[in-house]
């Protein structure tokens, strides 16, 4: 009995020894900044910066001034389009890799090939789309070279479509990764069993493969949606006048506008939205897993 207790005590001491360092670190550099940001979101703005206060004005502005809530809604809309486009690109690709490519070596190579773009500088990936879509860009010069148009087409760049294309391009690997992991885990025996029972390939896909890939789809949507909703670089590079995203507003408030309280309030709202999305997708994913048995 006593030896058991000492084992438990040793375990607890081990836990404390192991945890204290990281806990202190996380407390100082992670929790504290979030708390400070939360505090500042209630401050009042006053020249040159802001003064401690407790008022909800900053949140009020966000939900009453159309300048802000329209941008917030637009960000959510664009993020949704980005996720959908990324999904439409990723699912057939991943499905092909997992179920149609016979050699596991080729599959791994192709998988890595879809992930590699993630390792190319984010800025350069966004910028390259600017050089592709621009009026003096690759696409236009190609079209003029071939002779399809005489004048450069200007509607490729500086609009929301360009933004969706660019961001979907940048974030597609984040959709492919969870999809690949999930599709790979689907037991082949279920699909073969379905075939043996005379169910056609399409029904097998709809009844077995697709439902079983829901966790991956959810994870992919969560990643791409949150990343796209929080991006402020692509909008500046390829977005036009009506492409300001909520993250741009935050960046501006912390930059030129020097309104940290408002910026913090918006950041807190983004944080809440993201955490809500994560919690919901986590719950759905768990439900899906339970159905699997």
């Amino acid at each position, binding site marked *: 009995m006593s030896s058991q207790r000492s084992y438990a005590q040793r375990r607890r001491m081990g836990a404390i020894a192991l945890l204290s360092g990281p806990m202190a670190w996380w407390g100082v550099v992670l929790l504290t900044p979030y708390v400070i940001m939360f505090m500042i979101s209630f401050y009042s703005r006053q020249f040159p910066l802001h003064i401690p206060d407790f008022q909800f004005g900053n949140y009020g502005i966000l939900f009453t001034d159309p300048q802000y809530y329209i941008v917030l809604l637009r960000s959510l809309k664009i993020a949704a389009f980005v996720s959908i486009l990324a999904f439409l690109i990723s699912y057939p690709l991943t499905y092909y890799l997992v179920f149609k490519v016979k050699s596991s070596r080729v599959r791994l190579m192709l998988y890595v090939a879809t992930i590699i773009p993630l390792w190319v500088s984010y800025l350069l990936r966004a910028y*390259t789309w600017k050089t592709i879509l621009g009026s*003096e860009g690759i696409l236009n010069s190609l079209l003029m070279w071939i002779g399809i148009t005489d004048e450069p087409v200007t509607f490729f760049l500086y609009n929301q479509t360009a933004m969706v294309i660019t961001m979907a391009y940048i974030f597609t690997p984040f959709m492919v990764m969870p999809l690949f992991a999930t599709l790979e885990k689907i037991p082949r025996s279920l699909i073969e069993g379905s075939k043996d029972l005379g169910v056609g390939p399409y029904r097998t896909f709809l009844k077995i493969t697709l439902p079983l890939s829901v966790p991956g789809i959810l994870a992919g949507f969560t990643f791409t949606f949150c990343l796209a909703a929080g991006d402020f670089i692509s909008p500046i590079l390829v977005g036009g006048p009506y492409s300001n995203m909520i993250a741009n507003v935050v960046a501006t408030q912390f930059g030129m506008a020097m309104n940290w309280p408002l910026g913090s309030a918006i950041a807190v709202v983004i944080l809440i939205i993201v955490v809500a999305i994560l919690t919901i997708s986590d719950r759905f994913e768990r439900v899906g897993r339970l159905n699997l048995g």
Partner: protein
Amino acid sequence: MTAISTETGAARRVEPRRFRFDIGSPTTTRRALAIAAGVALAYLWAPIVCLILFSFNSNSITKLPLTGWTLDWYAMALSNERLMDAVLNSLIVASFAVVICMVIGIPTALALDRYDFPGKTAFRRMVVLPYVLPGLITGVAMLSFFSMVGVQLSLLTVIIGHGTALTGIVVTNVFARLQRFDRRIEEASADLGAKPFQTFWYVTFPNIRGAVIGSSLIAFTLSFDEIPVTFFLTGRDNTLPMYIWSTIRRGMTPEINAIGSIIIVVSVVLLFVSVFIMADDGPNKRLKK
């Protein structure tokens, strides 16, 4: 390809009519899938091909037709002192950030795997939060923190920012590896008289080494490319992405394409190394079976 055709042939021999009819549509599906996959890969690779292609093109404007082959942009990039300073700064930041990721991430993963403590779920969520949260939020939160504490922005604040934002990657990977690790080996080691640290070093660590190295390499490359956190935390010294950002806004030359191409090659090599190492003990073992 030959494997596929013999299979269909075998199937046909067994049940000629019905199967041929059934197989007809799956081949169309297979073709459609192959095309869709090809389009997706083209979408993913076309911009990178453009980037590399135009790093060798003599025209300073990135447009077709190609005007001629040159290495000038590479020479210009490599002799551009501010650019090279930025590369050096990025290397410094990424190296120190990775050290933070390991020193903080491994114990955190071990603690999450082994011990129950109050607020564990919240803690786990918090640790991965900066990794899933838009980098901008971590950036402005840390900016508020540093300004409130009165710390001057510098490469150090960038390093701390990256360390905080990226440790989640090491934690998740090492944690996932630990969950699949058979704890009885550790118990055996302890029973045989090994001290806790010896057990860790000789038994536990070799088993998570792949995850540690692989996720560190990922953290390194992500730090090397990080913008949203750096944007808010950098002082006078520029990291490479911040330097590129400033030149892009002034109008960019293929010099940036050149340095970008170099980074792609280095990253791809690093990536293959990390995949190779991760496969050592990682999830790819299942794949091979």
